[in-house]
């Protein structure tokens, strides 16, 4: 078992509040037409990824994680709101986008699907540098492969995807992203399709890249263990909106939003499970009041009524949480039962 420990202390020591926001979503909304209605896939999101910071975006299937990630990459245009990179609003013009893609790279879930079976490892990694007309292609490819843990790189140049293991394929995909020397990686379920034993290696690689290159990352996942393994901060998304965010230690050891609490409770070995029932939420019919209220166990069990907020749960909209690094929660009940009035600053 290889352990990647050194990154731990430096990471934990960096107070999240001191990081400058590199990639930002500001009041972002993304809608799609869907069977004659509007699907509000991303419905008001503030989110910031700081320099050298790893942020995990978690939430159930269909909550809008991929749509948010694609919009941050400029692959989807926001219906309203803006994406900012390094302080400037993202320009969707083709030239500006091309330059932007050198800085912010995507790593997809399924390495088999994102590699062309007829391209060698060398060709796969060289594609980006060629598009951008970079000099010294061979060195770039070799360095990217080595950084991704495929060493010695020359041994992998002429291999085809089917000659690699799943973990090696995901490393090739990561090498392809690294070849352009990006500042930010956006990884959509980077280990979901990998074997359990390989998963830790890829996550350790992401920590190492942050340590060696100062790389920032937004990791999209529905796996809370992954967030615990590598992220500084976590943002929990429900039905198009972030309902809780903050430092991982805080949010994942003392979750405040009933939805985060439910997600944590179904982890294996947790003592009492709150298995949410009901159909998966539909972004064409976002409920009024708190968007979670129809499935909320705190409201259903009467605890919200005890705190005197049940009527608000059903009718009063919650504000869009700010992107600042401290802990935030969008829940009437959590705000009511907590001694410090967190809602004030939001």
């Amino acid at each position: 078992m290889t352990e990647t420990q050194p990154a731990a202390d430096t990471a934990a020591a960096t107070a999240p509040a001191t990081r400058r926001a590199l990639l930002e979503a500001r009041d972002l909304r993304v809608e799609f037409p869907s069977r004659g209605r509007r699907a509000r896939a991303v419905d008001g999101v503030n989110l910031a990824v700081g320099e050298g910071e790893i942020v995990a975006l978690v939430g159930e299937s269909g909550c809008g994680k991929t749509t948010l990630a694609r919009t941050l990459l400029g692959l989807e245009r926001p219906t309203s709101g803006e994406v900012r990179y390094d302080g400037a609003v993202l320009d969707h013009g083709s030239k500006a986008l091309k330059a932007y893609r050198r800085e912010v790279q995507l790593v997809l879930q399924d390495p088999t699907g994102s590699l062309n079976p007829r391209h060698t490892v060398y060709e796969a990694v060289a594609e980006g540098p060629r598009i951008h007309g970079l000099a010294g292609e061979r060195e770039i490819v070799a360095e990217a492969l080595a950084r991704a843990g495929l060493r010695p790189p020359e041994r992998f140049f002429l291999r085809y995807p089917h000659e690699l293991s799943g973990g090696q394929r995901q490393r090739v995909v990561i090498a392809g992203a690294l070849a352009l020397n990006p500042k930010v990686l956006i990884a959509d379920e980077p280990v979901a399709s990998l074997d359990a034993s390989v998963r830790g290696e890829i996550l350790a690689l992401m920590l190492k890249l942050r340590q060696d290159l100062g790389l920032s990352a937004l990791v999209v996942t529905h796996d809370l263990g992954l967030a615990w393994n590598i992220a500084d901060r976590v943002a929990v998304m429900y039905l198009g909106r972030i309902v809780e965010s903050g430092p991982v230690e805080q949010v994942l050891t003392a979750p405040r939003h009933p939805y985060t609490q439910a997600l944590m409770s179904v982890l294996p070995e947790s003592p009492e499970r709150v298995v949410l029932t009901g159909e998966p939420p539909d972004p064409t019919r976002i409920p009024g009041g708190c968007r979670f209220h129809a499935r909320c166990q705190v409201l259903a069990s009467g605890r919200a009524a005890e705190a005197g907020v049940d009527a608000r749960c059903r009718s009063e909209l919650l504000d869009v949480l700010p992107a600042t690094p401290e802990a935030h929660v969008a829940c009437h009940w959590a705000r009511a039962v907590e001694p410090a009035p967190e809602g004030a600053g939001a």
Partner: protein
Amino acid sequence: MSLLELDDVSITYRIASGDVPAVRGVSLSLDAGAALGVAGESGSGKSTLAMALLRLLPRDARVGGRILLDGEDVLAMKWGRLRAVRWAEASIVFQGAQHGLNPVRRIGEQIAEPLLVHDLAKPDGARKRVAELLEQVGLPAWRARSYPHELSGGQRQRVMIAMALACSPRLIVADEPTTALDVMVQAQVLALIKDLVAERGISLIMISHDLSVLADVCDRLAVMYAGRVVEHGPSHEVFRDARHPYSSALAAAFPTVGDPVSRMAPKGLGGDPPDPMALPTGCSFHPRCPVALDECSSLDVELWPAGERRAAACVHVRAKEETP
């Protein structure tokens, strides 16, 4: 008596470039009403073993050893008997099968099909039974009229379980029933499977690469590596205190949230999964093993006793048991 008994089962695929020894001498048993979890690396032979239980392997697969279902050898059964067993006694939820539902037929028709084919019900009775089955898996009866694309991944997986339950089998084999489902839906499906085992006395074999999921549902666990069982024992003991280094690596791959040891410290296993056509000598795990000794590259490992109803195929286990 055990419901299912595997005795030295070996399965080899014959392909153009040679033999693929996918399963190499597996012995396991399952008591009636019990749940056994099978974990292991991708390619370690889990699905191959599952399919062999009902002789569902392709023709080019050679099977050795004995597979006893209720004392009767599945490998020796006549075709007619085998067919009867397949629908009345045991059924499999195949890996990824929820993607294989027929897209142009309603869910209800697909669930009713085996009942009608085997003459277990008339159309009217079948309709009632479908409603019953849907309810058992937590779907409203009106879902019978839905098409697969109208269901979410978790709902489709429930439909697969309803189909497996249709003929009231005594044994269900579920191959990766929750892989690719998100955490909440996974929890829903697992709760359903647990109920079936606990309340209806159905025996279960569940396959997954996630030890924590198996430990949650099953009484006992078997961990496979390169076609062999390398460890078996009571679930929680194997999960919390694995005796084979490969099982430890699998258990560590999914951290406990809140555990300071795993914070910012993902654990993985170096090296590549083994190629069944070019297996390492000695213990097949030795090239990736963090605690390998010199002798591991030549030693014939076998499942040595590793405590009460436990065994593991590792030299360190043998050493421990031998020194009193």
